[in-house]
């Protein structure tokens, strides 16, 4: 299912955090939102998730305005994984993941059906949480909690999956397996995936297309090697970068250049002094 932002402006109070952004998430593709802090990535994701009403422009879901569709219908099609999600009470992993079936439930007095159980089971397996299913979510590590939130969204069986910083708090191994999972969901199950990522190399690896945001505006949109260029990154992040080619597959590999070379290498005998010098020129 295609999710589209059409000249979308959204934000809180007077100043819109997203201004006139047009982009589309296509089924089977991964779209990555990149940009510095405050660029409007989270606001854009929330507007796409129908959590934040746009000030101008529209959000289109399969060609129809998301705000004219019934709320529950949107919830059956679009899942959103926020940056942080810790339950207020001692809910177990399985209880939280089962909440993903809420939009599909016919009536409040009906028990879960076989399809619900199967969706929850597959989501637990896909995120590697099956062994933790009876643990209270509040007792898990930050990375495990992120995976619980993802599993909850997968149990929703959405057509569009929106994720805000899904790899934050994840170690390298879990980050790679999560990104691989996102690609698999897009390629094999035809989901339209939109994720905001800070790590540009992760973005280059997982994305079919990258949307580079700066100050609420769309700076560049396209395949990673056309968007993650040295001039674009200098302009948006204020850091001079060298964009190399990743040896095995030729994907862009972004290496920031620090003033005076690599930090810690030229800081004299006191190695700790390198910390204060690791300030990028801007």
């Amino acid at each position, binding site marked *: 299912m295609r999710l589209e932002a059409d000249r979308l402006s959204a934000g809180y109070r007077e100043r819109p955090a997203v201004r006139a952004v047009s982009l589309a998430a296509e089924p089977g593709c991964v779209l990555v939102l990149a940009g510095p802090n405050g660029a409007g990535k989270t606001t854009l994701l*929330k507007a796409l*998730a*129908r*959590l934040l009403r746009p000030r101008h422009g529209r959000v289109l879901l399969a060609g129809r305005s998301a705000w004219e569709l019934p*709320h*529950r219908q*949107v*919830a*059956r099609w*679009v*899942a*959103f994984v*926020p940056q942080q*999600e*810790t*339950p*207020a*009470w*001692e*809910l*177990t992993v399985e*209880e*939280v993941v089962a*909440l*993903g079936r*809420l*939009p599909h*439930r016919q009536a*409040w*007095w009906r028990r879960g059906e076989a399809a619900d159980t199967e969706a929850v089971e597959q989501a637990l397996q896909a995120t590697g949480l099956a062994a933790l299913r*009876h643990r209270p979510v509040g007792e898990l590590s930050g990375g495990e909690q992120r995976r619980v*939130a993802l599993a*909850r969204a997968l149990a*929703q069986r959405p057509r569009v999956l929106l994720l805000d910083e899904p790899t934050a708090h994840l170690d390298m191994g879990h980050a790679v397996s999560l990104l691989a999972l996102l690609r698999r969901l897009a390629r094999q199950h035809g989901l339209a995936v939109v994720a905001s990522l800070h790590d540009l190399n992760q973005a280059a690896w997982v994305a079919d297309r990258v949307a580079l945001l700066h100050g609420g505006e769309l700076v560049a949109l396209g395949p990673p090697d056309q968007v993650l260029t040295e001039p674009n990154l200098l302009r948006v992040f204020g850091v001079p970068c060298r964009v190399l080619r990743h040896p095995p597959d030729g994907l862009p590999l972004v290496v920031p250049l620090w003033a005076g070379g690599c930090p810690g290498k030229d800081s004299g005998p006191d190695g700790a002094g390198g910390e204060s010098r690791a300030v990028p020129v801007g």
Partner: protein
Amino acid sequence: MQARQALARLGALAALTLAALAAGLMAGPVWVSPAQAVRALAPRPEGLSGGPGAGVGSQQAHVLIVRELRLPRSLLAGSAGLALGMAGAALQGLFRNPLADPYVVGASAGAALGATVAVMAGWASPVAGLSAVTACGFAGSLASVAVVYALAEASGAGGVQGLLLVGAAVSTLLSAAVAALLLFVDRPYLQVYGWLVGGFSGRSWPVLAATVPVMAAGCLMLAALHRSLDALALGEEAAQSLGVSLPRLRAATVAASSLLTAAAVAAGGIIGFVGLMAPHMARRLVPATHRWVLPASGLVGAAVLVAADSAGRVVAPPAEVPAGIFTAVLGAPFFLYLLRRQGRPSGAP
């Protein structure tokens, strides 16, 4: 925890509540033995089968005590406890805050103002089985919650936090109004105060008949909301992205819990602490999803309030300690003990 285990615990709580009710039939200034209580409850109690000339035997007195005094009164305490426990659990769920109690959105201050006005105006004609004072307390409770809700929505102060703040402000205002009214008159003070402190002394079948349908309506509404309240535990955005309409959930939860609370206040006055404590005890016994927490909180509240009412009759006969005082005196230390044993409050966000 498996569903079967949770169900077993719920059954144990129900059995405990029934045991408290049974004890409530027996305990009091006049003790009734179990056999006498059973005989009194039988469809044709022997004590009443005597002819018109029969003297007032002790069995007949037992029948009167059990059937007309203790049974309706214990059932009333039980249903009020059930209502307060469920309302507390629902509002804690709505506010995602373990400190919320049934009175946070203005139910108690409104009830106090309604009862005060009724006493001062000298209204006496009963309404639907309730005394005029109780009926005005019930109406005041619902009215003040409605005002709080309308103000919070109109101010756009942002969801449940706005509701909490407006509730605090309106409660303070109404309490000041009650205090001011009581300053200008001396006679009704004790009457109003006695009503507020609560207790189930002298309450019988008509009060039960008037309040139970209201409580049943509140319970049914909450039963329909349990999954939405679970989703809200993940945060407002997560709940919304799962298709939960926050304005509708807010309105329905406030409506259901204020029906329960107002009915409980009509049944026994403003009884504190049960609605705060019962959900915490429930979450230690059953899974934290509202499907289990709501009924378990209700049963804990019922058992506690029936026991408190019975104990209040026994400790200093013939005087009675109102159930509200008893729950606070026994409940607060027990609650502190629970917190200390667990090391942290359940579900602190």
